[in-house]
């Protein structure tokens, strides 16, 4: 084969490859996405007559029409979270639904429209939330007629027109597709699976789009001056680093004689592949600062983010002597390992890298300048180290800018908090309230970096694996490091029926039933920095015993409330004047202690008299004074004692009867 033939074969291949490369370089890359409904409130349907919304059903009735009743029809809506920039070109768009019932499978002339907004809200249970006037639909729509015939995924026709109408006007962060029912159509029914049935079968949206072009980005290159130059000129140069998705049609250079000042311009120059401009008429010895710019259909490249160069020529005696152009300015790039971990500011160069900033490049800094970078850790983080500095003073980084430099600030997440001194803080099973007792827990919250507690979690189970949990109580409470914390639970016969234990009660979710041994543990969490839960303590978990039933409820009061000496005093239930003592015992079920055969009473009236009487006990005090009256009730789980001080007044005088008047 001759060299000519080989050349004829290779040349087209090379040419096609080069053109393909250039095409891909100039054309914005298309992006494809398939997203599913991801929450119960993102797929819904409504009764078209009453307007009732259905959000939590395993099916979505997109079309549901039962002849001849015209009132039963439905409309459906689907919401997907997806980002599409405004101005993008929609190449492909369709939705997919999992049809599960083919008994009624004719879909005729159903209309599909997107809600015309860039961030439509999820659906709510409020009636007519799909067809409410707040959900303005696109003018464009897709007519859908189909006969699925079998269960499985069913794709809609193209939704490009409706979606394009949305994207033309909005930056999209979410989309809502609405099915519009036509009462005159002959459609029967279309029911598909919802997210509530299974995330696997949740409705999907498939989109392929091309983002809109952006302006190109360029770098300014070092100018050249010919060694043989006889005129005061230099060739300014630039490089297109990204076209922005559209062809570059123009270039230009701007310049001035001080840093950041570009009063002069080359004017727009058609771009043919060469990015340079010959600057003539330069004043020898004057420094020219310049930048390159490029243009496409989205506009000019950002001048502020383009690096600056400088060029100067000198004129030696006897002729013009060029000098090599040098970099006039340098840039300093700061990197952080965690954006939210802290801030960094520079003494010069404009670096002010906040909590949302992961990297930042300075404005041009004159070569030879010393820059100091100061880090400040955010709450919950600690500054750790620098990399790339010339020296470090304290936490500050010192950089001498003779070339472009990059430094990295490393912050570290604070350690997790921990619990110390976790222990039972005692139990009160007597006289807390009828039928119930209380168990307390105490611990100390600690955080080495001083982060305050935001939450604690108390867990109680009948085993050390903590499954199942009787109590899984999380509460938000701010506590400083080193401070003690405590919590308590109630022990009651039946937590599900006791008002203090159920929703709205002051011990909601913090009750356990009697007749068990329980293990407990507590974890804490900081509100800043490391947000992970601490290891639970005590470790291993410790236990406490709840007796087989509640302890006796021992309460009484004297009657009359202010008895006198030599007057019979009756001790009755506290808080009322009923004639029966209402002390409660729980052995063998709740009941009056006095009626329990196994229950014993022991009264000590404080006047030297005692009584085992089960019920209202009476005594008489011979002299005025203060007396302590004690009642102990004992059943088969234990004893509860109550002591009350009783004040006996002076003896009442003797009165006599007189004739009525």
């Amino acid at each position, binding site marked *: 084969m001759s060299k000519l033939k080989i050349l004829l074969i290779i040349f087209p291949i090379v040419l096609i490859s080069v053109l393909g490369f250039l095409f891909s370089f100039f054309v914005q890359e298309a992006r494809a996405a398939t997203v599913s409904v991801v929450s119960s409130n993102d797929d819904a349907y409504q009764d078209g007559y009453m307007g009732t919304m259905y959000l939590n059903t395993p099916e979505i009735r997109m079309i549901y029409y039962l002849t001849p009743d015209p009132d039963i029809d439905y409309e459906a809506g689907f919401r997907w979270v997806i980002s599409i920039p405004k101005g993008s070109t929609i190449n492909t768009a369709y939705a997919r639904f999992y049809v599960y019932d083919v008994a009624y499978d004719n879909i005729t002339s159903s209309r599909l429209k997107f809600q015309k907004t860039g961030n439509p809200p999820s659906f709510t249970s409020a009636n007519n939330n799909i067809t409410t006037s707040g959900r303005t639909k696109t003018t464009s729509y897709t007519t859908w007629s189909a006969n699925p015939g079998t269960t499985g995924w069913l794709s809609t026709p193209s939704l490009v027109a409706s979606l394009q109408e949305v994207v033309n006007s909005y930056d999209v962060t979410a989309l809502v597709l609405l099915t519009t029912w036509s009462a005159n159509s002959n459609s029967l029914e279309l029911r598909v699976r919802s997210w509530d049935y299974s995330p696997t079968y949740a409705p999907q949206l498939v989109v392929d789009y091309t983002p809109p072009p952006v302006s190109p980005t360029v770098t300014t290159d070092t100018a050249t001056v010919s060694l043989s130059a006889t005129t005061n000129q230099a060739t300014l140069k630039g490089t297109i680093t990204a076209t922005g998705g559209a062809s570059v049609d123009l270039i230009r250079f701007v310049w001035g004689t001080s840093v950041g000042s570009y009063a002069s311009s080359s004017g727009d120059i058609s771009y043919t592949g060469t990015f340079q401009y010959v600057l003539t008429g330069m004043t020898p010895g004057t420094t020219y600062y310049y930048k390159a710019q490029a243009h496409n259909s989205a506009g000019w490249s950002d001048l502020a983010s383009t690096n600056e160069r400088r060029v100067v020529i000198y004129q030696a005696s006897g002729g013009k002597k060029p000098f090599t152009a040098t970099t006039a300015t340098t840039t300093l790039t700061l990197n952080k390992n965690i954006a939210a971990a802290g801030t960094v500011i520079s003494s010069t160069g404009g670096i002010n890298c906040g909590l949302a900033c992961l990297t930042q490049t300075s404005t041009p800094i004159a070569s030879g300048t010393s820059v100091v970078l100061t880090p400040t850790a955010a709450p919950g983080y600690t500054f750790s180290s620098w990399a790339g500095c010339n020296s470090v003073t304290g936490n500050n980084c010192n950089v001498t800018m003779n070339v472009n430099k990059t430094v990295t600030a490393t912050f570290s997440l604070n350690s997790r908090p921990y619990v110390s001194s976790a222990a039972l803080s005692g139990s009160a099973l007597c006289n807390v309230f009828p039928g119930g007792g209380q168990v307390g827990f105490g611990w100390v919250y600690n955080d080495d970096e001083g982060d305050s507690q935001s939450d604690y979690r108390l867990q109680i189970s009948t085993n050390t694996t903590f499954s199942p949990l009787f109590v899984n109580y999380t509460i938000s409470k701010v506590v400083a490091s080193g401070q003690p914390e405590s919590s308590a639970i109630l022990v009651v016969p039946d937590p599900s029926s006791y008002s203090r234990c159920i929703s709205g009660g002051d011990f909601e979710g913090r009750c356990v039933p009697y007749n068990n041994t329980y293990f407990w543990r507590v974890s804490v969490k900081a509100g800043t920095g490391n947000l992970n839960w601490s290891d639970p303590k005590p470790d291993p978990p410790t236990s406490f015993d709840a007796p087989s039933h509640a302890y006796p409820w021992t309460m009484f009061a004297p009657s*009359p*409330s*202010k008895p*006198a000496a030599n*007057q019979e005093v009756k001790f009755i239930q506290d808080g*009322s*004047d*009923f004639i029966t003592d209402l002390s409660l015992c729980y052995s063998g079920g709740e009941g009056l202690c006095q009626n329990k055969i196994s229950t014993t009473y022991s009264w000590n009236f404080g006047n030297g008299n005692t009584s085992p009487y089960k019920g209202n006990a009476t005594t008489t005090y011979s002299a005025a004074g203060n007396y302590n009256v004690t009642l102990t009730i004992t059943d088969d789980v234990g004893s509860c004692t109550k002591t009350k001080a009783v004040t006996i*007044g*002076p003896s*009442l*005088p*003797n*009165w*006599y*009867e*007189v*004739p*009525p*008047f």
Partner: protein
Amino acid sequence: MALLFLTGMRFHLFKNMSKLYLTILIIAILVGMGLIFYFFGPLGKPKIGPNEAALIINYGETKRAFVGEVIEEMTISDALLVSAKAGNFDFDAEQGILKRIGQFEQNEKKWNAYLNGTKTGDSLDKIFIKAKDKIELKFE
């Protein structure tokens, strides 16, 4: 001998007393008896001592009254208690509310308490009394 002497003296006096003196003596005796009935008998108002109070139980058709000393922090309930002891009757009260006195148990009629003519609205064991108070318990 002495008895015979006195009898002889009285006979002698009556024999020599004029009709005028006899009339004056009879009137004086009647006035004295009237005063006794006025203060201590059914026609008179009983005297209440300086440190005493009175309690009247008005059953509707009949009444009973009691009088006695008042001590510090004495309540209407206490007064009823000491009156019951003096009058030998019993009563029931719940939370300071009078329910029954003797056979008179409240049903259609209620027991209401008045202190110096003003109806009380509180529990009887919370109302303190003082000297000269007049308590009336009315079944009405």
